[in-house]
Every structure is written in C-alpha cells, then in structure tokens.
C-alpha cells in the first residue's frame, strides 16, 4: 500500500513497517526485543521461537528496497538487558546502514549501550516536514510518525461478523504505526470519521472505509 504525505512517498508494509522512499529509510515501531526472553527469565514459558521473528522479518524486508537507514520509533527493547542483546548486537554489526533509536517508555537499557553499537539515540527526530516520536503528539505542527499505542481496530461486517486487526492509524497530522514485534498484542481504537485506517493481515495492507 502506497500513500503520499506532504509529497513524500511511503510504503505501508504488511509487516507493520513503513518504507520512506525519498530517504530510503524504514520506520519500525515497538519491536519489543527481548520480551520473550524477559518472560522466560522470570519463569513464564513463552515459546522461545516467538523471539526470533524480528530477524526473520528483517530478512524479508531488507531486500525489498535500497536501505540507507532504519528509524526505530521507540520500545526497541522490552525491558532490562538480557541475552537478546547479544543477538541484536551481532545483527547490528552485519548491517551496512545507519540506525536511529527514538527512546520509548520501555527502553530502559542505557543510551551509551546503543551508542556503542553506532546507533544514534534521540528523544525525537525532525526531518523535512516530519517529526518522529515514540508517543503520539497532537501539538506538534509537523506531521508526526509515532508508535507506543500498538493500534488495532474492530471491523464489522454483514452477518454480525467481527474481526480485530492491527493497523496503521492515520489522522490529519499523525500516523501511528502498529507494533512490529511478535508477542505484543493490539490496543483497539475507535476511529473518528476523518481518520484513515489501514489494517494489516500480515499478508496484505488494506484501507478500510467506514459505513455511512
């Protein structure tokens, strides 16, 4: 699904990431790396395989377009440092592109650790007509890309069918990305008439119209 914002071209990918064509950058929100490991370290047996999905997903995403940069919109790591860190470190070292981390509420690993991997850590990031943040921000005049919410919507159909899906949630000055990580869940939002909703089924991104 391609959309245009302020004459820039963005690809909404079914994985939950957004590709910014002009800047050859991926935007990824709420990866929550190490969440599975954190649970497991505390004796809660989440399947170990659920964790590896970030790297598998990246293997699919990266060959699609030329990549100069990844901007993580916060909550890259779920909690304290655990073994997941070493996997991530190894992965970062293999990548030729730049990375920026906008700090989220879950990012409690100290900044210098990220910086030592060559990742630029920022509270938020301004570029052209855009503003990149972790938390939604209605006051900024620029167009905001953010995460934090893990947005999802409830769809209804004829025959009282219902389905809940993660979505890209676009209002007039803001686009909230779905959570990129596995084992993250969704928070159901109720869209307003002027909002545009792009749900992802993990195979396809579809724009949903409201019913009048």
């Amino acid at each position, binding site marked *: 699904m391609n959309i245009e914002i302020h004459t820039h071209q963005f690809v909404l990918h079914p994985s939950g990431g957004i590709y910014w064509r002009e800047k050859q950058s991926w935007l990824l929100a709420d990866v929550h790396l190490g969440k599975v*490991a*954190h*649970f*497991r*370290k*505390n*004796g*809660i*047996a*989440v*399947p*170990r*395989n*659920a964790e590896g999905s970030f790297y598998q997903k990246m293997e699919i995403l990266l060959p699609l377009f030329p990549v100069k940069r990844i901007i993580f919109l916060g909550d890259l790591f*779920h*909690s304290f440092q*655990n*073994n*997941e860190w*070493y*996997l991530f470190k190894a992965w970062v070292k293999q990548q030729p592109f730049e990375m920026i981390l906008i700090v989220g509420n*879950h990012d409690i690993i100290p900044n210098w650790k990220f910086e030592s991997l060559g990742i630029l850590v920022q509270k938020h990031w301004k570029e052209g007509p855009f503003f990149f943040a972790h938390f939604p921000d209605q006051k900024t005049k620029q167009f905001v890309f953010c995460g934090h919410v893990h947005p999802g*919507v*409830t*769809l*209804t*159909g*004829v*025959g*009282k*069918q*219902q*389905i809940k*899906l993660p979505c890209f949630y676009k209002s007039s000055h803001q686009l909230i990305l779905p959570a990129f990580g*596995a*084992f*993250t*869940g969704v928070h159901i939002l*109720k*869209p*307003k*008439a*002027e909002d545009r*909703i792009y*749900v992802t*089924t993990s*195979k*396809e991104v*579809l724009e*949903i*119209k*409201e*019913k009048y």
Partner: protein
Amino acid sequence: MNSVEQWFKSQNWEVQAFQKQCWKAYSQGKSGMLHAPTGSGKTYALWGGIVEEISRSKILPKGLHALWITPLRALGVEIQNATQKMISDINPELQVGLRTADTPQSQRTKLLKTPPFGLITTPESVHVLLGNKEHQKYFKQLRVVVVDEWHELLGSKRGVQVELALVYLRSIIPNLRVWGISATLGNKELAREILLGPTDNFTVVEAKIQKKIRVHSLLPKTMERFPWRGHLGTQLLPQVLKIIEKNKSTLIFTNTRAQCEIWFHRLLDEAPNLAGSIAMHHGSIDKKIRLWVEESLRNEALKVVVCTSSLDLGVDFSPVENCIQIGSPKGIGRFIQRAGRSGHQPKAESSIYFLPTHAMELIESVALQNGIKTQQIEDRIPYLNCYDVLIQFLMTLAVGAGFEPKKIYAAVTSSFCFQALDQERWQWILNFLIRGSQSLQQYDEYKKLIPDENGLLKAANKNITLRHRLSMGTIVSGNDLKIRYRKGGYLGSIEEWFISKLKPGDTFAFSGKILELIRIHKMEVIVKKSKVKQAKIPAWMGGRMSFSAHLSDLLKKALFEDQNKTTREFQSLAPVFEQQKKESIVPKPDELLIERFETKEGVHTLFYPFEGYAIHEAMANLMAYRISLISPISFSMSFNDYGFELLSDQAFSPEAFLDNDLFTPEYLFDDLAKSINISEMARRRFRDIALISGLVFQGYPNKPVKSKHLQSGSQLFFEVFKDYEPDNLLYQQAVEETFDHGMERGRMQLVFEELGQKTIVWKNCSQPTPFSFPLITDRIRSKLSSETVEDRIKKMYLKLEKAAK
C-alpha cells in the same frame, strides 16, 4: 451410651439413623460417603464419630487430627461454631480452627504454630498449607479428611485441587481416612471412587430424608404483552410483590449479577415500603455486606433477598418460607437445591415459584415439574488431565519443601484426574517447569524450577516463589477493581472492562445503590452516592450455563407430549404457538425444524434441536464448517438452549444442504476439531488455563508497576502457542476441555445419531417466528469463515466512534 449420644440427649436432639451409621463406620476405621441434604445434621454425623473416637482413646492428640474441606468460606464459620460447641462440651481442651482466604495473617500464623485438633478450610487453603516448607510435620498427626459438599466441587477444577491434595496426603500418611458429604447426584458411584480412591474399606450412607417440593409457575395474565425473548421477567413484578407480602421471608434467585441488581431496583421502585427489609447478595458484593445479609436472614430481619448462585449453598436460613427462581435454572439439580433453601423447619415443605422471562421458558416450567416428580438429577462430569492445576500444584510443592519427581508421579497418577498421565507427558510437564520448553536452546535464560543437591525440585528464586504464592487458586477472577467510597468503606468489586467505559461523573448501579464515579485510583474505583434515579447496570462476564441433558429431554417431552394438554402453562402459550404455526410448525418428536428468512442483517437460518446451549454451540460451529466446505462463506452464529442460528450475507441453498447429508455422525470429531481451530471456543477456555498455570500474572497487590513488564494477556499466549508451539499441553488442554466440557463430547455422538433418524422440515418464512426471536436478537456471537481474511475484510467496515456522527 457413648458421650456423643449423651451430648445429643442433653441438647434434646434425636439421633438420626444415618448419623448412627456414620459413627459406627467411622469407629471401624472406614472411609465413606454420606449423601445428605443441607440442614439435616450431616455435620454432626461426621464430627460425632471423630470426637467419640478421641474421647475413648483417653490420650489427647497433639497436632492436627482432622481436616474439614468446604467449598464455601461462608460455610466455614457456621461449621466451626457448630462443632466447637459440641467438642467443647465433650472435651474442653480440643480446639477447632478455621483457615480460609479471609483469615487474618496473625490468626494464620497462630494456626500454623499451634495446630488445632480440627481445621476447617477450603481447597485453596489446603494447597497453601502444602506450599509450606514444614507441611509434612504439620500433617503428621492427621487421621481424617472430610470433604463437605463434594457434589459442588466434583466437576470443577477445584475438585481436581481436592483430588491432588488427597492423593498427596495419602502418600505421606498411610491409613488416612477420607469421608465425603454430598447431595444426591446422578453419578454417585463415580463421585465416591474419585474421592476415596482405590479402597475396599468404605461405607456409603444415605440419609433418607425426602423433602417435599412444591413448584408453582408464575403466569402472565395475558400472553399478548408477554415477550418472546428477554431475560429479565420484570413484567411479572406485581405477582412477585404479592408473594413477598404473603410470606415471612423470600429468596429471589437470579441467574446473573446484573439481573440481580436490576430486580433489586425494580422491586424497590415498585414497593418503596420494602426499603430496610430488602437486600441483595451476589459474588461481587463485599464480604462484610454479604455476611451481614446472611446474618439478617437468619434473624428474620429481612423480608426479601435478591441473590445469585452465591446463596445456593450452605448456610441454613430457617426463616425462609419461599423461593422464586427467575428464568431457567438450567438443571433439575440446581432447581431442587434452590427450592431446598426454603422450608427448613422439620417436616415443612419447600416451596418455589418459577418465573419465566420469555414465552419459551413456560415450557421449561412444565419440564422442571416433571423432573422433580421423577427425581432426575444430573451427573457431574469430572475433569480429566488438568495440566494447569497439576502445574500449579507442582509449583506449590516447589515453593515449599520441594518435590521428588518420581515420588510425586506415583501419587499424581493414583488420582482419577491423572490416571492416564503417561511418562511422556509427565516428562513434558517437568521440562516445561525446568526448561520452559522441550528442547534445549542457545541463549536461553529460562528459570523457574531447579534441582537442589538432593534431587528435589525447588523454585529458582524468591521472585518466582512470591509470584506463585500470590496467584494460587483455581477460581479465576477477571481484572477486578475494588469499589470504595471516597470517605472509606468497601462495597465490592467490579470488572475493569465495565468501569473503563465510564467517565468521572457517570453513574452506575451497584449493590443496590446508585453510585457516581469520581475517579479510578490504584486499582480502586472511588465513588460517592448519587441521587440520580436511572443508572447503568454493570454486566459481569460470566460463563453461560447450559441446559443439562436431563432438562433437555424433559423439555422435548413436555413440548411434544404435553402441548395439547390443558395445563395452565400451555393454555397461556396457545397464542404463541398459534403465531408459530402461521408460517412454520411446532416440531414433532421425529422432526428437526429448520427455518429460513431474510432481514436487513442478512440471511438467517435457524435450527431447533432442543439439546442445550453447549451442544448447540458446537453443532452451530460444525454446521457452519461443513456448509463452508461447499462454497466460501462466512457465518456469524448464535445459540441458546432451544436451537441455534447461522447468519450469513449470502444464502446457501437448502438443496445443497439437504443433499450433502450434513448431519452425519461420520467424521464428527475430526470436523469439530477443524471447526474449533478457527473458532473462539478454545481461546475462551484458555483464559483460565493461562491464569491457573501461572502464565498470566495479574500483578502484586498495590504494586502494579513493578510487574508491568511481565504482564500479558492470555490471548497473546494463545496466539504464540498456536503459531510456535502447537504441541504445548496447555494449548491442547484448552482444546480437550472444549470437547469434554464445552461441548459434552460423550453426549454429542448420541445426539448426532438421533438426528440422523429425524425428518428435516425446512420452512421458508417471510418474517421471524416466535421460536427464532430469542436467537436472532442475541448479541453474543461467534464466527466461522472459509473465506480468506483479506476477502472478508474487503466486505467489512469500521465501527465508528459515536461522537463523530
């Protein structure tokens, strides 16, 4: 004459035959099962034997001698008082203690340090005791365990908890005697076997006390304005008020807490003079208020109490003269139990009024009366292979003294629930607890249980111990918030999802009061009294009860055989039947009725097998699945005790349906498994399993922040197990439970074989029929689809926020 008989004499009580039988059997060292109704003196039938034995032995026992397990905390106080009185009179040095979740910490410590002679407790509290490091010493002197109200526990996961506690206690105390007390139930033999284990040294005692029960139907004066659907029944309020007036005190049984709140308010609105003599009782109301209501009932200070199943059990309310059941009680056993709450004076009759909430329930009234006549009481289906409860139990041992896998395996597999647990699955469970998975993985830091130098498995660290202790128990409560007045004073608890829909300043009804929400603060809802008259009634998500097989049979019989009889119920129903027959039929015993009509909502197809909610839920899934194999189609389904509905945006043709023999019992369970994989049933079951097995942690009390990074919904677990670990036993348990308890696997096969013999009558109607009405207006639905998600979404639209319009 022995000392207990003397004591009976001093109280001017007559010893009953069943009490004597129990005393004798106990003195012979036997285990046993006593079938007796509440209020019959069953407590003394067992304590009598225990006390008599002690008073003969002349040596005062040190330590805990008798353990009494009761399902209801409220019952504990009652039993403690009654027994302490007898024991003190016979042997003043013996103490009876009480330990439940309500017992203050200081008292618990005292009970642990100086064990009483007898301890009255709940299944959960027994497990807490087993989680103590010193529990082997504590239970060393134990000679007898009595399980009260076993019929209530059997058929629930708390029953499995009792089973595990018993097999474990037996493994450390040879010659432990076990006694059960139970009301009459269908499968008595099995109930006894599960509790007593494989022993020949037992007796079964029947208290032959038959209470007479009078059932009256409350009928509307005219059927014209009586609703075809609904669940409130408030149209009959004037008649209810008359009954209340006539009697000293009345219990009104409702099926849900919301219904309970509504009836309470409507009664007060209609008869303001009841203020002060009316009260409400349900599981979410604060304990103190509930105890006050129970006390007031006993003191004849209340004229009417509106309640839910929270008053089904136990406590003896002698002054209650009458009961009213609002809506279907869903089973004969429960109906008899509720009726039995009235007429407790010797030789008094129990009297209960049945109040139908919609037209179809009038037929049920006839069925219930027939059921009582023939005493058709339901079976309780015990749980098998409850891995969640087992995992919790193993953790409980691990946080205490630790456990040796080999020994515990022998004990666990001697229980009924885990009799078929093979080595392979046992190893799976151990791996799950020790490694968090079945294969060793690099980089993994999983920690839960670790073996100590003696090979005992123990909890890995303090945090794990603490989290386990805080989340023990099999009764699962949702995310409940406490309700509190601004100036202090708790009113009870309410589910988070309801309160999250309210804004400060909004009002809602709770515990008979209208409250205004001030704010939500640290898991507490702060409220003040409001003067508003109308307010939202909270709904509680509760499991829906299903018709029992017996009630279903009785209902079919009543519908088919009695409809032309001139009973009051069927006379009242005549206009409804007339309307039904305009475009459709009232099916005969050998017919299966299917109705089809269209509305704005889509194409409705309705089936009426009259087999109960649970069977219909499964059957609807199965039918939807089989039809969806013919061509891609999406269904939304609704079900009740009478039938089910498939609603779709396209019509499927009756010919395609009839020619393909879709009711065949062949491949029944294969097809069901497939339809369940893409439905919601197993997912719902999984919620409890995730909580019981400790996957989902609800947070430390008053410390919500610290555990935040460990909180996750059971839904998310269900998804990751499905995607990454489908052979996970807990995930599989959800599926198995759905088969056995959600759909009654055993009965399902029979039902399908019977359906094969029936003639299908397909009726195309121009408008909804009276039979269809409760179904098509039901808002609780599930879905099944054979279209791809993407195709379905393209036809869907967003639910818009109302304010935006």
